[in-house]
């Protein structure tokens, strides 16, 4: 693009430089009409590679998963046969025994329930922990704020697996917690490979995703409003409840989305810290593609998860349009 522009104007340039009367500038100006009218605008062709990449890497896998979920499972397991069937979705709720009787089976639903519960607990605990942190950071001097935000992002500097293994070292039978407890004469506790360990890992992992959007919404908060509220007779708790909290709502909602959605489908923490004792959606899907070699069912589970989260997102979008509050899912 810039090359094209360069060759177009280069022959004209000397005339312009020599001409100090400005008269010859007129024809040059008419030739410039060929240039894009909006400076910095891209021709649409330039976007195509990016669009192809985006389509291949985001929409492509999604389409494949949706297609797989409607296909049949080969008798040997693994892979798919291209025969349309709704069997995977039926299997989610109903189970047939060897005699061919189909009966309602809530086991997979309860896996969803467990995942929902863990994700909800993670979100609520993160919210309760994150709001005071975000408020505290937002009320520091600006230089300190930047430092504190950087500290919040420190966990992102290392791999999630590495950090999870670190938690295993902390929680295992000879880990820091148990060694410390033993020093005080306390009995040994089974911490690792419990649902609580999995929950703890989830909260640890997702806390920054809650802190950052809430901080972002509070950083733009005009604290003179809080002063005005004090002046009108409000106490500290009232100021937070009636002034700060409503104005931080967009940040809180994006924080909830950012924590809830990945926590719902989490895989690493339930396996490594929970010891796989609690079956969650993430593990269930992984096992369908792995040990169980039932790809269509795994795909169907993924699609169900996707639809559930999409419904939640649409509900939030509707709320945001109705209340006039801007909700962004970003950090």
């Amino acid at each position, binding site marked *: 693009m810039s090359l094209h522009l360069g060759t177009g104007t280069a022959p004209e340039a000397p005339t312009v430089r020599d001409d100090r009367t400005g008269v010859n500038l007129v024809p040059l100006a008419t030739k410039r009409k060929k240039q894009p009218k909006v400076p910095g605008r891209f021709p649409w062709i330039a976007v195509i590679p990016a669009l192809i990449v985006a389509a291949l890497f985001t929409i492509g896998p999604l389409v494949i998963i949706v297609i797989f979920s409607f296909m049949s499972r080969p008798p040997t397991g693994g892979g798919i046969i291209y025969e349309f069937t709704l069997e995977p979705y039926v299997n989610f709720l109903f189970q047939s025994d060897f005699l061919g009787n189909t009966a309602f089976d809530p086991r997979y639903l309860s896996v969803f329930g467990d995942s929902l519960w863990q994700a909800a607990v993670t979100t609520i605990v993160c919210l309760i922990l994150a709001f005071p942190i975000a408020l505290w950071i937002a009320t520091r001097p600006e230089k300190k704020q930047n430092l504190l935000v950087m500290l919040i992002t420190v966990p992102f500097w290392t791999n999630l697996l590495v950090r999870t293994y670190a938690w295993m070292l902390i929680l295992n039978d000879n880990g820091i917690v148990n060694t410390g407890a033993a020093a005080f004469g306390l009995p040994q506790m089974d911490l690792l490979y419990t649902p609580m360990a999995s929950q703890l890992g989830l909260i640890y992992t997702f806390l920054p995703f809650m802190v950052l959007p809430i901080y972002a919404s509070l950083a733009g908060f005009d604290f003179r409003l809080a002063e005005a509220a004090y002046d009108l*007779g409000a106490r500290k708790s009232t100021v937070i409840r009636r002034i700060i909290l409503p104005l931080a709502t967009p940040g809180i909602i994006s924080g909830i989305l950012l924590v809830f959605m990945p926590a719902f489908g989490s895989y690493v923490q339930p396996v490594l810290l929970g010891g796989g004792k609690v079956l969650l959606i993430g593990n269930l899907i992984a096992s369908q593609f792995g040990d169980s070699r039932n790809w269509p069912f795994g795909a169907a589970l993924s699609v169900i998860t996707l639809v559930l989260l999409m419904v939640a997102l649409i509900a939030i979008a509707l709320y945001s349009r109705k209340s006039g509050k801007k909700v962004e899912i970003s950090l």
Partner: protein
Amino acid sequence: MTTPIPTISGHDRVNPTDSPSRELTISHARKTFITPEKTHVNAIDDVSFTIKQGEFFVMLGPSGCGKTTLLRSIAGLDTLDGGEIHLGNQRIDQLAPHARPVNTVFQSYALFPHLTIAQNIAFGLEMEGRPKAEVAARVTEMLELVQLSEMANRKPAQLSGGQQQRVALARALAKQPQVLLLDEPLAALDLKLRRGMQSELKRLQRTTGITFVFVTHDQEEALSMGDRIAVFNQGRPEQIGTPEEIYEKPASRFVADFIGETNFVTTPAQRVGGVGGGGEHVNESDSENGLENGGADQRLVVTLPGGDPVTLPKVVDTPNGEVTLTIRPERVSLTPTGVRFASGRISKLVYMGTDLRCNVTLADGTELAVRVPPPFPAEVQPDAEVSLYADPVALRPLTPETAAGHGAPGRATVHAKPATPATPQAAGAQPTAATAATPDAPTQAAQ
């Protein structure tokens, strides 16, 4: 000030007019800030004064003079380092902001953006736990008072600046505070709106009878609105008085310079009558007490180039036998009236429509700004020789400034403490007026 608050019967606070001793007393207030350069700045420097009940009190001064800090200290949003604030018999400076019977109108308005206008006004009343019906009635009343009834359900962002200002006022007044603090509330409005809001504020103050403490850096606003004005400089009031006193009888060079336009003329003065050394001492304490002509029969007489001797209306100290006069341009006349105190040549002439602004250069080089009201005499032309006339009281001698730069001699001892960074103040007292003093006579502040 005897008009009762527009009230809803029943749950009102004590009507200020019922308890006459609800004055706001500030005594020895002190606050020091530490600048990023680690120097201490006295934002409020041992300030003591009393604001009367139902008064429209204006704190006027340049930015950074401590007036806003003092206002915030009264509101409880800043804490004083020392001193006390009393409202009537109640000491309020140690109360939490929500426990003080004062409310603030903020410069930024600080309206809650997520609440409607009505909810904004109701906020303070809800904090008091008033019954819902009463809150609703009071909100309606306040909306009517500021003429915004039809805007009740809008959000602040949908209102113009002037309307937002009125909501901020209504929100603060709804609580019927004993003192309403206003922090440059009109600064963000354009000139025309500001004029309208000035009279509006004055009207509200009269109808409600609430004590208004109004902070501004706009001297015109202060003069037109205030019952009394405190002119702040370097963290302390230089002069407190009615607009007339402040304008006509400025206590210091700073006040004379800050309020309106003025000429400063430093000139030799003769002492006439009275007893020599002893009289001077008496005069010093007298001028501190604000008495006009001291007990002694002394007079000060000055003679400006090309003029008759003039006896000054007030006796002040005359270090080096010199005195600095402040002369308002509009008090000087080119047509015979009072005394002919000087004569000179018109060096500059600007037609302003409402008046002519001339600079008259005296024989010794001093320039005096003069305003000539219409009808404009034909002889007022550039380079014309003119005689300047004025009532002798228009030539006001200023009390000489001490080395620390403060007008009243009694204060100098307080101020000369080592903790005080004294340097900027001497610089601040240097001539900054439109017309400087005579070139061969350095200002006394420089001593």
